[in-house]
């Protein structure tokens, strides 16, 4: 899941209206784990990339629907999700792991080795 930061993205793609998925963000000593609810997004509809210091999570739904369907009640009105986070410097964008399972994205971002907490001995 590595992408170079200087890929020029089509502005139209970014401006399409999208749902904001709910997330959980948990930090431990070695990194950050992010869970995002993206129901309806298959593995190949997911796009996670880092643009400079910005983490972008995008997902396109792949629902199969009958053709002659007429909606009577709609709570999910858009077919895509998008959420953007600014990463802090101690995180290592090169070490990103993404896992997709039943519409839940689990993202693990490791901290850079030098940024791990160190216990400072107090002498004297």
């Amino acid at each position: 899941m590595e992408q170079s930061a200087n890929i020029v993205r089509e502005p139209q793609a970014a401006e399409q209206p999208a749902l904001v998925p709910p997330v959980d963000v948990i930090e431990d000593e070695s990194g950050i784990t992010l869970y995002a609810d993206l129901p309806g997004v298959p593995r190949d509809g997911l796009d996670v990339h880092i643009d400079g210091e910005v983490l972008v999570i995008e997902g396109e739904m792949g629902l199969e629907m009958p053709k002659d369907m007429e909606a009577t009640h709609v709570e999910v009105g858009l077919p895509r999700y998008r959420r953007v986070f600014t990463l802090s410097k101690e995180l290592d964008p090169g070490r990103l792991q993404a896992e997709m399972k039943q519409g839940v994205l689990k993202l693990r971002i490791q901290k850079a080795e030098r940024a791990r907490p160190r216990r400072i001995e107090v002498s004297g």
Partner: protein
Amino acid sequence: MDFSLFPRDLFAELDRLQRQMQQAFEFSPSIRGFARGGYPALNVASTPQSAEIYAFAPGLDPAQIHVQLERGVLSISGERGSDLPAGESTASVHVAERFTGRFHRVITLSDDLDAEQVRASYRDGVLHVSIQRQQAAQPRRIQVN
């Protein structure tokens, strides 16, 4: 506008405004609370042959989802566990927005549905329930002589 405790908190103001809007537009919701913002989110649609229900319920074990249809009332229930660290962990939680716990949503559908012909599938975190209409209720073209 009501008085708020911290009038400069823009997000609290927007939150309150949204609730007021909801009350203004949905002034008589169904008694079973067919309200927005619940888990799972629901889309309901109909075709001449069937009713199609999509429940956006990510992160479940399909064997643990209970779907029940009785006299045109469809009920979807289950439980979703938490991914947050347990009590003694040293990890800290910065954002916790995802739903956890038991859920139960009930939808009143039309009464021309055939309770014997229901298909339910769970894929990519979306539960799709398709219920056929009774044969007698399906539109039929009548020949004019």
